[in-house]
């Protein structure tokens, strides 16, 4: 049993390493370049008593943003969504970098307000209008205002140690580089759809052909095509609806490939295209087993095919909060009460009537 386990692990590791095919490894280079440029910009801009020229840092940061935008995949989604996504994300990352490199804390708080506003834009793009409004009201409207009050009350005089120095900028930037590269690599590895996209492009090209021979030519070597389909479907969950329907569509296409009926071929190609699009949406998805009973109160349960979200966001949130998450809501209310009392108790000074001079 133990030997079997060890052998299995070696086999699995071998398969994992073989999975890191050149397509994904090729995307490491541009990603590391973008992240490296960003970290170099942060290293230049972090506050020090004698600062490097800020223009250099700004230029490195701009180059990092452009390189990062080029590295992201842009397939899928409408043009409006792409423009909004890139502007909100760019603004958020830029303001985040400004926030951590600002010497003056009040400016850092304002940069954080811009981060929050950009995140609200991204929330809106993800069908969360109530969260957008709630985040603006709570974060930008309450938390940041409280920060500004505290900055006003706790202002050190003149040029202070706290603002003008950073602790270990080089080590922090190097650590951040490795952390970000790891996170982005895992995200890309899990959600990479390059193989499936290649399959879909081929299927679309074959759909326009008018003779069975031309279709066979476009699809190329059947073994290669089958390998490409398998690699594309490898990241889907076995026995899930998306994978089984894509596999059966592919098998049906292969079965009809040697006949010369062009209408049948077109039908099978259409089915494979449809199934491929559905499979593309499901790449990298983890879901509980099919028979698990999950609550239906918050939208589609996680083990069913996802439906588009309802436009009644607030009603849906209300239903979810007061059915599935009732205990958490009550605990959250208690937490807020305790935190309010605690904050007042921490800063309370004995001697009522005396002005709380700091």
């Amino acid at each position, binding site marked *: 049993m133990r030997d079997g386990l060890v052998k299995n692990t070696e086999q699995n590791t071998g398969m994992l390493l073989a999975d890191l095919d050149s397509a994904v490894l090729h995307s490491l280079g541009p990603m590391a370049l973008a992240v490296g440029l*960003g970290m170099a910009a942060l290293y230049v801009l972090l506050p*020090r*008593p*004698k600062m490097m020229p800020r223009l250099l840092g700004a230029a490195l940061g701009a180059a990092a943003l452009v390189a990062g935008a080029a590295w*992201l995949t842009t397939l899928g*989604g409408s043009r409006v969504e792409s423009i909004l*996504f890139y502007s909100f*994300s760019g603004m*958020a*990352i830029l303001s*985040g970098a400004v*926030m*951590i490199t600002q010497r003056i*804390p009040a400016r850092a708080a304002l940069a*954080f307000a811009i981060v*929050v506003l950009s995140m609200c834009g991204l*929330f809106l793009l993800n*069908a969360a209008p109530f969260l957008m409004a*709630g*985040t603006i009201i709570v*974060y930008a409207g309450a*938390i940041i205002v*409280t*920060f500004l009050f*505290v900055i006003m009350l*706790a202002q*050190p005089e*003149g*040029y*202070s*140690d*706290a*603002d*003008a*120095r950073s*602790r270990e900028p080089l080590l*922090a930037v190097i650590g*951040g580089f490795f*952390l970000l590269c790891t*996170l*982005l690599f895992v*995200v890309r590895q899990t*959600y990479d759809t390059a193989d499936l996209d290649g399959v879909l492009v081929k299927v679309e090209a074959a759909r326009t052909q008018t003779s069975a021979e031309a279709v066979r030519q476009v699809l190329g070597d059947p073994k290669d095509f089958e390998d490409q389909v398998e690699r594309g479907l490898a990241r889907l969950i076995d026995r899930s609806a998306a994978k089984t329907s894509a596999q059966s569509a592919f098998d049906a296409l292969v079965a009809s490939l040697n006949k010369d009926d062009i209408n049948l071929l077109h039908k099978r190609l259409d089915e494979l295209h449809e199934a491929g699009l559905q499979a593309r949406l499901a790449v*990298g998805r983890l879901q509980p087993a099919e028979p698990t009973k999950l609550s239906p109160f*918050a939208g*589609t*349960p996680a083990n069913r095919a*996802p439906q588009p979200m309802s436009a009644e966001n607030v009603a849906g*949130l209300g239903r*979810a*909060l007061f059915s599935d*998450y009732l205990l958490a809501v009550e605990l*959250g209310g208690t*937490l*807020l009460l305790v*935190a*309010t009392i605690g*904050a*007042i108790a*921490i800063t309370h000074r004995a001697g009522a009537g005396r002005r709380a001079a700091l």
Partner: protein
Amino acid sequence: MPLGNYLTVGAVLFVLGAIGFLTRRNLIVLFLSVEMMLQGVALNLVAFARDRGNLHGQVFTLFILTVAACEAAVALALILMLYRERRSLDVSLWQDLREAGQDGTVDTEPLPPPPVEVPSPTLVPTGRVPVRANEESYV
């Protein structure tokens, strides 16, 4: 927009917040970096909620919002108390709380001198002081 793009942005914000938290010495900016990490996580959750078609991610983000508000209240109260003790927001002043065996932070580079504030020029008042009519109110 594929899910991976939103997760990428969330990861970048999280790492930016982590770098800010590890690097800066001002207590307020330290705490703002923590809030930025929470924003990155919130974006992840909302993106997953949209991908799945249910609201669990959004509910979780609402709770993150609640907890962040409580945390901000308590943390800012603590920051005010720390400021009262030492009159500064520098986190290196509290280095005695570090692990035994760790070297403390020693500032070697001196700060540049603060910029000299040139006072605005003032004129010597000349002439007679104008007589004001004794009105009930000047509004």
